[in-house]
């Protein structure tokens, strides 16, 4: 059974006259359309069609996990990190959630003419520190400089190679009714911190991005438990989008308990007045995990043993109905459908 998105989907009508908009990059429905209708059209192959965070490349002698990600974040320096830290930990995490030990990274820079060397050095230092912390080696790279006015200062692409942990097999095909859903901590921190840093709303908030590697946690879980079925990091598009990716076109659904979701008061204090929803905000130090119900409590204990992960919790389970959908059981006991991100999240006044 293939992970990923059914190509014969109702939105197969991308207008060729349309321009690319910001929606194509925000991780929501428009992003998925771009992938389905253009990238798969030109590049489709068995590995790519699975549309996982990393591609598993198998030969007789080895099982390699390969991924790539581009980092265009603004601002480049934000509370809790910078583009460099993100470029390493984000790609490490993409490898980790696919069950790999991250080994090597490539690193491509696109730098705007006039960018200050001092700033570049800060970013390189962040990358160095994160690489040392996680044990990955940056082994190859590239640099291009573009004219002033392009690249918002700096864009970084990192591609990562890791080795699949022995015996690990993750995928939607392993998911069963009754499996539990675990998140390793507070959601929405990165998204809220970045929006505030970028938009400069007239508010003050003591909140940092959760930008951090999670490979040490996933490695421990995979070494101690057999029941880990699938993991994914809820970056752009947030927790709601990734949960929908888990169930799309599958013979099961997911039910989430709103009361169990770990959300900081200040993220709620940010979201409520502006009309945002924490379930759609990006996270950069989190992963969602589908785990056998018999191992859920043990998994939680393992995660809790890592400093900074005390807020991890079981937030839902895999259910029989409705198939292919995510249901939220609300704070007041009712139910509603939780879709993936569609449209741009904009602050509303009404």
């Amino acid at each position, binding site marked *: 059974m293939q992970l990923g998105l059914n190509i014969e989907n*109702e*939105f197969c009508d991308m207008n060729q006259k349309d*321009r*690319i*908009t*910001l*929606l194509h990059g925000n991780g*929501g*429905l*428009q992003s998925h*359309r771009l992938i389905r209708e253009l990238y798969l059209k030109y590049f489709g192959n068995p590995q790519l069609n699975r549309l996982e965070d990393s591609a598993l490349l198998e030969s007789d002698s080895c099982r390699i996990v390969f991924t790539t990600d581009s980092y265009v974040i603004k601002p480049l320096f934000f509370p809790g990190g910078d583009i460099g830290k993100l470029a390493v930990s984000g790609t490490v995490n993409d490898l980790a959630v696919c069950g790999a030990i991250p080994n090597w990274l490539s690193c491509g820079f696109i730098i705007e003419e006039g960018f200050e060397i001092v700033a570049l050095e800060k970013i390189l230092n962040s990358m160095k520190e994160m690489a040392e912390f996680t044990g990955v080696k940056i082994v190859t790279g590239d640099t291009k400089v573009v004219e002033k006015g392009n690249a918002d200062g700096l864009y970084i692409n990192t591609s990562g190679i890791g080795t699949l942990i022995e015996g690990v097999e993750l995928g939607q095909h392993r998911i069963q009714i009754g499996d539990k859903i675990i998140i390793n901590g507070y959601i929405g921190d990165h998204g809220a911190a970045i929006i505030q840093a970028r*938009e400069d*709303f*007239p508010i003050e908030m003591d909140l940092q991005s959760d930008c951090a590697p999670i490979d040490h946690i996933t490695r421990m879980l995979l070494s101690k438990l057999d029941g880990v079925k699938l993991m994914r990091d809820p970056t752009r598009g947030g927790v709601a989008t990734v949960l929908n990716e888990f169930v799309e076109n599958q013979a099961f659904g997911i039910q989430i308990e709103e009361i169990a979701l770990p959300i900081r*008061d200040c993220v*709620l*204090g940010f979201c*409520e007045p*502006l*009309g945002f929803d924490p379930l759609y905000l990006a996270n950069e130090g989190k992963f969602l995990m589908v785990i056998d119900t018999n191992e859920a409590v043990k998994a939680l204990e393992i995660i809790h043993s890592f400093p900074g992960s005390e807020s991890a919790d079981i937030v839902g389970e895999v259910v029989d109905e409705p198939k292919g959908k995510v249901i939220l059981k*609300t*704070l*007041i*006991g*009712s*139910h*509603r*459908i939780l*879709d993936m991100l*569609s*449209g*741009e999240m*904009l*602050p*509303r*006044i*009404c």
Partner: protein
Amino acid sequence: MLQYIDQFRNLELVEFIVNKIHQECPRQNLKFMEVCGGHTIAIFKFGIQKLIPDSIQLISGPGCPVCVTEIEFIDQSIALAHLPDVIITTFGDMVRVPGSKTSLQKERGAGIDVRICYSVMDALKIAKENPQKEVVFLGIGFETTAPTVATAVKTASDQSMRNFSVLSAHKTMPNAMQALLDSGEIGLNGFICPGHVSVITGIHIYDFIAEKYRIPCVISGFEPLDILETILMLIRLVNDGISKVENQYTRSVKENGNPKAREIMLEVFEESDSHWRGLGIIPGSGLQIKNKYRDFDTRYKFKITREPAIEYPGCICGDILRGVKNPVDCALFSKICNPEDPKGACMVSSEGTCATWFKYRK
């Protein structure tokens, strides 16, 4: 813990009121209309319709300012944005509203300068920081928002600013509710009245609905406890055969509203006719900038021509806003018109009926 928010989401109290609603609900089918986008969102977000008996239907009326803003306004905003040295400042949702051909968001790719503001005062700040540019603020919203925009206009005037103006599409509630009732197309048993509009206007603007049309009205807050208590209050009024206006949102709405806010609003704005998307022109339902402040009226500053606007063929936003059709009745819903590519305004705003149906879906 969000003070004075979380307590109104208390599970036990909600369950208790839901039980009361089930106990006291009459046998007949009831239709209650809310005319506030915030209520539309809250009802869907908290799954309120699923908690109450099926015999009570909650209908969304024209309460989303983005949804009811006329297409010409969007076209005019886009045209202004293409003029040299113009910065368009706006609240978030207006960026995606489709005009006749395109939207501000789509035109961003072609290089126009559109900036999203949390507050109209952000727009004033942008004007001060860009003295060589003309800053146009898109004034949308009802009586809750108009006083804030009026304050900005007064401030600009007091400070003799030369490069700030407001393109007003502000609308007011009572006449639209009357137009709905006069259209005769929907039989309503009660109104869930907009809580924050009422903070400004006070409770008596709805008296005519209770007196002339014999429909009970309850002014409601926005948390689950508020909306459920409002529904219970409406049920009790229906059961007792009483038609009056009651205030559920007592912690925020005073009987006489906020006179200072109204005074500021009416110093800058005056009543005008207004075009409501899907409802047509409703007399006395809009706010335009008074002559005294015409230097801050975009329509006066720029030569704004009124060209007829084109709705997307098949769009039934009008019927949806009047509460006579549901989003699923629209042939465009979901397949052609969705939040990624909205064709009508009901889909564009996150509080629009179609967007909330798409997102929260019954």
